[in-house]
């Protein structure tokens, strides 16, 4: 050993991430908690995330974080058949990282079944938004006396799937909110009880059928989602707990698996709250294709089904799948416009076509500036964007100037580009709606409208649009979209009351949606309102939301005119409403005043005397 290596470097050791977290806690998280979120984003090891989650549960901290603007609260119950002590901590770390502050409830060891069979006393009081149930194989094997008897195992697997279906239904009814189940992984230790390969295959088949039955619950039972544990295992690289932890502490799952689980639950919680990203901005050179088109020409680009074109082909195919499911694709490239468009149009193996791309910014301006301009034209927030670029400098600049954009971290080798994007989960949804499927078209029409609007007065322009609005009551066909609209809309959102599908259907309020179409196309369901009749003869507007793509077109006036007229016809005395300010909903501050309401108490009131008329350029109808 050389002398240099024996020098004591104790004092020079950098602070551990946990030590930095403790320091940050002492100094305060600041107004935005961005530093806290960035620090949590650096942590990847289960040990750190578990400890960080523990530190963040300390007295007073949740209250401190609850007051950070933009943070959303979520109540999460965790049920299971093994020791899951780590899960609430891991969830706290991964959720806070994504701007969600959880309150968690855990039941005693292996109480998942008992809790529901006794009428869910703990859950009902807690009123969870999400009830998680993570079961391990012992929940299945508990009902089997001879673990090597294939017939008995086969029967047990069938029975277990039925029991769990029943359980999920009851749990959803008793607890409300969304129930999240997972498939049950089979360990090699349990499978190893059987000696013959025919028997091993039968057990695996019975087990796979059981898991398939469990997965089907997400279709069969309203309000239930099911995660595939096999995919979580692939993410984690390990599934079951080390033997010592299983024996000594009743752990069933490895910390790495539980971390992958917490991260997936975080994505699902974001989707459940409507905190989804909407747009993907892509670089061209060395991202969507290999090589620099301005230097090498279209013919020399690496793109296609042969190496080295395969990674770029794979990425384009993935982006196209996303576009078909409602993600808005845009291009942010440093290129001459005609060169970029020429390559997109003329390369024979190009997967993405002009129809898939809502906007193309190919110029020499900073990309953050281009992305902001795209957000403005598309009328969405920059925080709805994901950005993909092979160049570390471009990624760094985007993080610097638009930290709210999710910039995907990439390695130099493009082989993993598609995998990185596919596993980041930024666009995950609870359930796809027709509006999602048509979105690319909707937003291209939005960009066309913006072009058509140049040079005429707004009202003249609006008259040429041939706008039709149809107001319809809540029903099975629109409940998912209305829930999503309340969850996702930030700019035009009067009170920020959000609803689950179940809450909207519980009969305590009347809910309506409004659809908008014009000569450029069908914009789909773009507004929703909830009304509660009060005992004093008035009708209260509990909340109203309007999608940003329908701003400034007279939709607000039309819907409000219809609400007020309807109240008058039903013999209500007056209509009341409230505006609750948030960092993003400033544009509806004058809404009630503009609609002819007068201030009353801490809200607004309309006595149904002078009801504003539907703008003359709108054809409005009501659907029973």
């Amino acid at each position, binding site marked *: 050993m050389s002398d240099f290596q024996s020098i004591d470097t104790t004092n020079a050791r950098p602070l551990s991430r*946990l*030590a930095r977290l403790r320091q940050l806690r002492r100094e305060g998280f600041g107004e935005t908690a961005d530093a806290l979120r960035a620090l949590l984003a650096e942590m990847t090891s289960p*040990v750190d995330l578990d400890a960080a989650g523990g530190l963040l549960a300390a007295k007073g901290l949740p209250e401190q974080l609850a007051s950070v603007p933009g943070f959303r609260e979520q109540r999460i119950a965790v049920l299971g058949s093994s020791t899951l002590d780590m899960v609430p901590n891991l969830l706290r770390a991964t959720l806070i990282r994504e701007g969600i502050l959880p309150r968690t409830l855990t039941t005693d060891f292996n109480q998942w079944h008992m809790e529901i069979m006794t009428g869910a006393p703990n859950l009902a009081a807690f009123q969870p938004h999400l009830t998680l149930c993570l079961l391990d194989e012992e929940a299945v094997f508990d009902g089997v006396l001879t673990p090597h008897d294939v017939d008995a195992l086969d029967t047990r697997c069938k029975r277990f799937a039925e029991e769990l279906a029943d359980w999920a239904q009851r749990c959803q009814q008793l607890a409300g909110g969304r129930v999240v189940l997972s498939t049950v992984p089979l360990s090699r230790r349990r499978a190893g009880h059987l000696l013959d390969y025919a028997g091993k295959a039968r057990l695996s088949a019975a087990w796979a059928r059981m898991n398939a039955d469990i997965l089907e619950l997400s279709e069969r039972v309203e309000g239930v989602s099911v995660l595939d544990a096999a995919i979580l295992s692939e993410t984690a690289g390990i599934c079951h707990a080390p033997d010592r932890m299983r024996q*000594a*502490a009743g752990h069933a799952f490895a910390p790495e698996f539980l971390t992958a689980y917490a991260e997936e639950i975080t994505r699902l919680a974001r989707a459940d709250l409507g905190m989804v990203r909407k747009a993907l901005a892509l670089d061209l050179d060395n991202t969507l294709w290999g090589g620099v088109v301005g230097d090498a020409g279209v013919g020399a680009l690496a793109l296609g089904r042969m190496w080295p074109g395969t990674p770029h082909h794979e990425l384009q195919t993935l982006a196209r799948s996303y576009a078909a499911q409602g993600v808005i694709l845009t291009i942010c490239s440093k290129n001459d416009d005609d060169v970029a468009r020429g390559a997109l149009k003329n390369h024979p193996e190009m997967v993405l076509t002009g129809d898939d791309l809502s906007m193309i910014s190919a110029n020499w301006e900073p990309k953050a500036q281009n992305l902001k301009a795209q957000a403005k034209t598309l009328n969405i927030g920059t925080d709805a964007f994901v950005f993909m670029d092979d160049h570390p400098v471009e990624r760094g600049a985007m993080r610097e100037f638009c930290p709210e954009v999710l910039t995907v971290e990439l390695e130099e080798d493009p082989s993993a580009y598609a995998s990185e994007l596919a596993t980041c989960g930024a666009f995950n949804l609870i359930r796809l709606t027709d509006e999602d499927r048509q979105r690319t078209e909707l937003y291209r029409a939005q960009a066309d409208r913006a072009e058509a609007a140049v040079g005429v007065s707004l009202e003249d322009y609006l008259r040429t649009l041939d706008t039709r609005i149809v107001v319809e009551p809540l029903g099975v066909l629109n409940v998912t979209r209305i829930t999503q609209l309340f969850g996702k809309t930030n700019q035009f959102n009067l009170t920020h009351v959000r609803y689950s599908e179940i809450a909207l259907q519980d009969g305590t309020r009347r809910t309506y949606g409004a659809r908008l179409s014009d000569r450029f196309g069908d914009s789909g369901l773009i507004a929703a309102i909830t009304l509660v009749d009060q005992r004093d003869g008035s009708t209260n507007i509990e909340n109203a939301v309007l999608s940003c793509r329908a701003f400034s077109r007279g939709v607000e006036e039309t819907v409000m005119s219809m609400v007020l007229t309807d109240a008058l016809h039903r013999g209500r005395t007056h209509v009341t409403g409230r505006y609750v300010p948030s960092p993003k909903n400033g544009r509806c501050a004058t809404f009630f005043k503009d609609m002819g309401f007068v201030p009353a108490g801490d809200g607004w009131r309309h006595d149904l005397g002078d009801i504003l008329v539907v703008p003359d350029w709108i054809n409005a109808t009501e659907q029973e």
Partner: protein
Amino acid sequence: MTVSQITVAEALADLLDLDETTLTPETLFEEIDGWDSVNALRLLVFLERETGGKLDYNAYMACKSLGDLAALEVQPVAVAS
């Protein structure tokens, strides 16, 4: 190699948000605010990561004071070459 007092004190401070200067070899685990069986396991996993080796479970559970733990022998984990 043993665990060492510095590693034990740092790990405990980070896990339970304690002031490191109050932790001495004589400190008993049962005196520590918030110490329980769950935290005992968390500390074990944490120390195994920090030291890169394994600790004997029974010997670990028998430790009463920080000093007992600091003196525990870390068993190297075989690495495939």
